[in-house]
């Protein structure tokens, strides 16, 4: 049963809570997609996806071309990396990477030669006739990960081996977070690539229904997609406009809105017959399959009051943030915080030397007027507004209570791990308590305890094993000693050494006979 209908008459449902936020997107949607120049140095971190860091295939001094694989997946849940431009591998060392911790990580550094030569593209031209497994492997070899920000290896979400049948594919073009508009521009300018990518994905997933979801605050993108869909004339694909409420684009929330079903807390969207991919991921799949181009660039929104000429740029992976900001007119006087991602879920970085990675959907240089100041929170007044806006229907005030008391077992009782860290509760709290930070802290404390417990379990096992081994050795020693004692006594009571030897030979012969 639907709660409402979209403009096209498609059944839609509600998700609980959420906030209508001013979207601040107009500042970056003018000017189309600008192509950023290739910088002098490209920094490619080995870990820019969920799973194990990739294993480098190149060495210092190697010459590489654009699209050449420079690192391979380390395991199933891992992704490959490709040279974003041609040049020479100048270093494989730790560099500052964009991460909330501010730590450095191993990167392949390429000194570009300015020629931007590419390897021969390797498309899969007859993908409609290729088995889904071949399509999947091609996507994997292209190093494609979820480009909505999660960076999960895409091929795994196109894998249907041994899985229940998938009822529909959802392409997420909601882009609900304020300031970010990269998907909007992609849908406006390259709608055909998205549609083609959707068709490829439908083939890989052996499914016949795809919904492209887009928030109703993107009229131009909507028009472009409608035109592309009309041209493709594929009845399996449909465009659905969803309300512009944050976090409409959260995977769990979008699935609930489009299907009315909830992803089980201990399961995956597959369990409700759905697979969800970002629209940019679909476009990347198109490029890999049809054009044979691996993932070497992405569209990044460079915005905020701290940027002189905000807009969307197509940047090579590995481009330092500062190069993109410079390309967009440089900083304004008011730039005070540099955020990778959006203002709700993005994290602050302390240096603009960090490179663009596959998950970099937005570089937000915020001014003091835009970002929250440091403040002293008041005590919780139990108003319950946080629970009103929580999309997961949690009780943030109770989770906060137990987190402050460090009673982490009780936070699990109140479903702490269902928190998607969207930040809605933080914004509405009258006491201005940094709730999302408390929940992140609680989660890491619980994980830390679990790691400790696992270590302690292993230590206990080893200890018990060692005890058993010592006992066994002691017993064996005892056995040996006893036998020797007996032999000695037999000799003493009249037997000779010869008799002992004869007896031993007898025993050996009997044993041999038993064996045969």
């Amino acid at each position, binding site marked *: 049963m639907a709660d409402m209908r979209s403009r096209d008459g498609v059944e839609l449902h509600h*998700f609980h809570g959420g906030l209508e*936020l001013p979207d601040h997107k107009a500042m970056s949607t003018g000017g189309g997609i600008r192509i950023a120049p290739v910088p002098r140095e490209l920094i490619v971190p080995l870990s820019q996806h969920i799973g194990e860091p990739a294993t480098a295939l190149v060495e210092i001094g190697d010459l590489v071309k654009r699209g050449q694989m420079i690192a391979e997946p380390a395991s199933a849940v891992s992704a490959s990396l490709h040279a974003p431009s041609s040049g020479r591998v100048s270093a494989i060392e730790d560099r500052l990477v964009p991460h*909330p911790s*501010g730590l450095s990580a191993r990167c392949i550094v390429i000194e570009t030669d300015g020629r931007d030569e590419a390897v021969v593209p390797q498309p899969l031209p007859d993908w409609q006739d290729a088995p889904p497994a071949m399509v999947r492997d091609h996507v994997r070899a292209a190093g494609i990960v979820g480009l909505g920000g999660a960076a999960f290896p895409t091929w795994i979400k196109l894998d249907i081996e041994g899985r229940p049948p998938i009822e529909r594919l959802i392409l997420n073009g909601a882009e609900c977070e*304020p300031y970010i508009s990269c998907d909007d521009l992609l849908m406006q300018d390259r709608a055909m690539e998205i549609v083609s990518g959707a068709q490829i994905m439908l083939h890989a997933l052996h499914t016949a229904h795809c919904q492209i979801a887009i928030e109703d605050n993107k009229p131009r993108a909507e028009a472009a997609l409608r035109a592309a869909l009309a041209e493709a004339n594929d009845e399996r694909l449909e465009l659905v406009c969803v309300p512009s409420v944050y976090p409409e684009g959260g995977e*769990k929330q979008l699935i*609930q809105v489009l299907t009315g079903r*909830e992803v*089980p*807390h201990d*399961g995956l969207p597959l369990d409700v017959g759905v697979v969800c991919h970002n629209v940019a991921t679909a476009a990347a799949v198109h490029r890999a399959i049809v054009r044979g181009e691996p993932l070497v660039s992405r569209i990044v929104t460079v915005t905020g009051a701290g940027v002189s000429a905000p807009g969307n740029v197509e940047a090579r992976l590995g481009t330092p943030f500062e190069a993109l900001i410079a390309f967009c007119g440089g*900083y304004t006087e008011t*730039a*005070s*915080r540099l955020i990778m*991602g959006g*203002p*709700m*879920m*993005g*994290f*602050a*970085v*302390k240096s603009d030397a960090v490179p663009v990675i596959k998950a970099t959907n937005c570089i*937000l240089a*915020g001014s003091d007027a*835009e*970002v*929250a*100041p*440091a*403040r002293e929170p*008041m*005590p919780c*007044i*139990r*108003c*319950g*507004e946080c*629970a*009103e806006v929580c999309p*997961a*229907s*949690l*009780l943030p005030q*109770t989770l906060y209570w137990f987190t402050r008391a460090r009673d982490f077992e009780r936070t699990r009782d109140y*479903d702490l791990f*269902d928190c998607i*860290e969207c*930040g809605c509760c933080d*914004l*509405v*709290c*009258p*006491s*201005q308590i*940094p709730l*999302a*930070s408390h929940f*992140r802290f609680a989660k890491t404390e619980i994980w830390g305890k679990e790691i400790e417990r696992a270590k302690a379990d292993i230590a206990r096992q080893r200890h018990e094993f060692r005890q058993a081994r010592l006992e066994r050795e002691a017993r064996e020693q005892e056995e040996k000693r006893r036998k020797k004692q007996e032999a000695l006594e037999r000799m003493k009571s009249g037997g000779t050494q010869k008799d002992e030897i004869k007896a031993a030979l007898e025993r050996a012969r009997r044993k041999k006979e038993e064996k045969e």
Partner: protein
Amino acid sequence: MKFTLAPAPHLKPLNSVGAVMRQVLYALVPATAAYVWYFGWGIVIQMLIATAFALAAEFIMLVLRDRPVRPFITDFSAVVTAVLLAWAMPPTAPWWLVGIGVVFAIVFAKHLYGGLGYNLFNPAMAGYVVLLISFPKEMTTWIAPGMLVDDDNQLTFFQTLQTIFGGGFPQGVNVDAVTSATPLDYLRTQLTANRTILEIRQNGLFGDFGGKGWEWIGNFLVLGGIWLLYRRVIRWQVPAGVFLGLGSMAFLFYALDPGSHASPGFHLFSGAAILCAFFIATDPVSAATTPKGRLIYAFGIGVLIYIIRTWGSYPDGVAFAVLLMNMAAPLIDHYTKPRTYGHAKP
């Protein structure tokens, strides 16, 4: 470039405690104006005295407890407690009465439990109950609404001041003409004397629904409550619960025996029922916190108000009802946890 580091989310907070408290005060302005219209300036004087005592008590307690003074003194929570307590006082009560009440509320019911956010009981109601039990005579000396008193005997502003600060009605005031029982009080005593509702309602104290004057104050309180709902300062569960609880009990007994039970309309529009529904039971700290829990909590308050009014010893049961349900709030919360996304329906 030096950048600030802070965790997500990075947008400015949408709300503040001060903003919430101030909205409550704004919502009371129309009703206060109506109150002054019918009963004179007494209530405003009571509010001023209460606020002064409340802020002084809060300041002293914050200093004694070694807490930062500025953020808490300026959050308006003490002012809201003072104003709501002043609303519960007879307008001509002596100045020290509301002073004692509000000091008790701030010191004992708020700070000794841990201050803002930690109090188990509604401070204004705790203060009111202490006064009611300790000073029953002063707390039950109410005045008649202006339209029932003829022009010669109307209490002037200056006379009101004298009454409040001077230890009693000054010379020249016709005490009999000016003072009066409240409609609820009158109802009680007359019911005990076995008069019927119909007979009782003939008395000039009663208007169309509730008491004269009180009905209109009730209307403006409802307006204020709707404003608070619109601004999302309060949510619908508490007012709905109180009205449902009180209304259904009143309806039930009125249907059974209209002769000796007042109508639901009377109960809903008299005394502090509306004030309770929108301003008192909605005190977030002492109420239940889950949405379903609030409904149950408020329903319990409504039922208890009716029970205390009808069969208890006090003409109005709002304060006791609220305090009793405050005690039940943690238990109610425990059993009304909402179902989280992705978890099975139990």
